């Protein structure tokens, strides 16, 4: 938790997002703290509804209008506070400094425009140039994401491409402006396993080439293990555990993390029954006084139900944090 001399690429402090509905207020992002360095991949893991996507959208300040807003905290990109930028300044950050890859390749490309058009649109906004140059750069971007015959594909419409191809195009859009950070929000969930693996390899290669930071959002610990350097685990709008991949896999501090890891099918491990976590998270509108995971936790005691556990340093070196009475109480 100590500030290093070097400014991290992205630094999120005490970020809190509030959603107010008729049913009441709740916080899908509740006091997040994490950092991302250049060339690093940060995995954000959690079940659906844990606030992962909301975290991603709050980083680019694209929360659903009216319904959700950031109430406190700070997001610093290379030391620059994003939350205090004007709307047009923020628009310049999007796509140029922070790019995103969305979940669903089926719907994340606009069916009315050609692939090239959609790539150059970002370029036009952030790095204008003559038409022919833009087109060249779009083709270049496609080539980078290993799209075959990019000169040809650049004039295709999304409906003419396969799902994997479309997701590559989304990737091409993301990298076209050479962003510093890419947020990938479950980019592979709707792809089949082989395509998924290719895609992840591609991301890794791109990162090695450009040194960008990647925030990789997923519910799948299996992917995280191969791809990420560090992990934050989210549950019910809170970061319950964070640390390096090695630490967390070796010694998960939070029972939830443990359960998630146990849910990953092991290719070479024992053939035991796949574990699933019993129960489901509490409804968003109910804010339990204690640890939100307590009702599903096999190790919960009375304090877990009544008091929110503090975030503590699990290993004593600041590289592994967790919010659990089991750790805090030690």
């Amino acid at each position, binding site marked *: 938790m100590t500030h290093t001399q070097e400014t991290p690429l992205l630094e999120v402090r005490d970020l809190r997002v509030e959603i107010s509905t008729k049913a009441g207020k709740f916080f899908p992002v509740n006091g997040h703290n994490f950092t991302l360095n250049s060339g690093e991949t940060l995995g954000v893991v959690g079940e659906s509804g844990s606030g992962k996507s909301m975290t991603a959208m709050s980083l680019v300040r694209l929360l659903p209008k009216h319904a959700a807003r950031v109430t406190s905290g700070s997001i610093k990109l290379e030391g620059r506070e994003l939350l205090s930028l004007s709307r047009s300044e923020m628009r310049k950050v999007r796509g140029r400094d922070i790019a995103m890859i969305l979940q669903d390749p089926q719907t994340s490309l606009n069916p009315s425009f050609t692939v090239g058009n959609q790539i150059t649109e970002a370029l*036009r906004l952030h790095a*204008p140039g*003559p*038409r022919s140059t833009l087109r060249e750069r779009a083709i270049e971007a496609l080539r980078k994401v290993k799209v075959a015959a990019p000169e040809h594909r650049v004039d295709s419409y999304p409906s003419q491409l396969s799902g994997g191809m479309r997701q590559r195009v989304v990737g091409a859009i993301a990298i076209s402006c050479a962003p510093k950070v890419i947020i990938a929000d479950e980019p592979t969930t709707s792809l089949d396993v082989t395509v998924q693996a290719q895609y992840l390899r591609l991301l890794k290669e791109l990162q090695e080439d450009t040194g960008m930071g990647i925030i990789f959002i997923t519910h799948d610990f299996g992917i995280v293990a191969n791809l990420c350097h560090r992990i934050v685990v989210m549950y019910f709008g809170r970061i319950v555990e964070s640390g390096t991949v090695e630490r967390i896999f070796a010694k998960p501090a939070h029972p939830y993390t443990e359960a998630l890891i146990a849910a990953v099918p092991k290719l070479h491990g024992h053939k035991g029954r796949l574990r699933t976590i019993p129960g489901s998270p509490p409804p968003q509108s109910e804010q339990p006084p204690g640890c939100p995971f307590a009702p599903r936790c096999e190790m919960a005691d009375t304090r877990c139900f009544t008091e929110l556990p503090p975030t503590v340093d699990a290993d004593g070196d600041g590289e592994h944090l967790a919010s659990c009475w089991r750790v805090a109480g030690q």
Partner: protein
Amino acid sequence: MFYRDLYIKCTPKRLLAAVLLSGTVLTAGGLTNTASAEEKVVVAVSPLGADSNLYWATTGAFIFPSMQTLVGNDAQTGKYDNSQLAESWEHNEDFTSWTFKLHPAAKFSGDWGPVTAADVVHSFNLHIGEDAKLSGISNFRKMEITAVDDHTVRFDLPNPTPNFLFSHAGRGSLVIYSKAQFDAEGLAGYEAAPAGSGPFEYKEREVGQSLTFSTIADHWTGVSPEFDEIEFRWVSEPSTRLAMLSAGEAHAVTLPRDLQDDAAEAGQKVLSSSEGAMQSTMLFTGQFMNPEAEENRDARTYAWADQRVREAVNRALDRDAILEVLYGEGVRALPVYTMDPRFPGFSEEIAKGFDDAYGYDPEKAMALLAEAGYPDAFDTPEIPLVVTSLAGNPEFAQMAELVQAYLDVVGIKTQMREQDWATGNTAIRGFTADFVTPMRNAPVRPSALGVQIFFTKHASPHLDIGDPELNDLGGKLISETDPAARDEVLKAMFTRIFDSYAHIPMATVPASVVVNGDLVEGWNFPGASSSGLSHYHLIDLK
């Protein structure tokens, strides 16, 4: 860059823009300034049956102040006068030969020369041509016309025709066109701008919209209107016409009767023709008075084949109340349809006996029905009352609703049938009609013409009610020439119709026009033309 890109590539936008642009251009194309003459009188009327410069090609609905007929009508009394082309006329003893002398000063507009007998003969021949659709033109086909000299024409008729002047006056069948213009330009000349001899000159026609005439200075009749131009606008919606009047866009408009009250309340002036112009009635269809079986159906299947039923229908109606609702106060009830005090055959006795015989008496009506074999209620199928809103007579619908309500009280069930004119006529012509017809609203015409058309087989066989007595009398009327004897025959016919309750007479109604009180002082017209309007030069502006 970005925008040029958009412009070149996004074709739908360009297409849409082109479509919209063309709409705007078209719209702007219509942006012609309506240069209105300083003194232009605008008269809005409901569209005529035909939009044509050729009188004979219409069925008679025609507004053309530039054209003249042979005989005129007095603005006050409606009596025939020599205000049109004929200076004087005479006929032989048995009314089979009529001679007209033309005004020597009469001339056509636009340098087409004086009006001569040759023009009359020429026009006559046009009128009886193949394409003629004029009402009553069939009689013309049997006549011979001779130009006696330059300013004298003679008509020789096969039958005695005491009412011949009617064919030449306001509702006449012969309008005089210029032969010189025809020889020079042919029909196309008429279609473009027919020369006429009236105090106005044809200016232009916007098909479906308007017809404009300009005033002639130093007209041969000495008539000099107060204004430079008169424009007739065809506007179907009565409320739109009233709006035009209220907005000061029109000087005068025709309106349905009940809207006239409203206009009067709103401060407009209602001007009525000096004489009754229209007669309204309801007619039973079929040869219900034929004692023999009718051609296609048994006459007795009509409920109204029974005179008691017909009387009951007439007795059930409170005419005073109905007429007040429909036409306002001061409209006379009509004792017999086609009878009029201005024409031969008028019977004082009938007029006096009307209240006794036709007066409102629901008890009597019910008693009659009971006597006729309908003790509790009228158990035959409902009598269809035909309503033709499409024909543009809004008061018919109200009349029908009122009649229905009154008949309902005495137990006669009716059913309103919305049906267009042609369908009804087809049924009547095919002798399959089974209804009480539209409330005929026909122009007043000489009794001898009307009674033959609507009650006997002699003029229009399909309207014959099948009464042998009436048909005999009608036959006599055709050959009778002695005025007194004709009068007697007509009286006998009217009495027969009256006594046998052969129809449901309603009222004689003047033609009327509503004028904007701020613009128009007054206007005298006799109500003797098909539109009811005439004598436009008498429009008196403020």
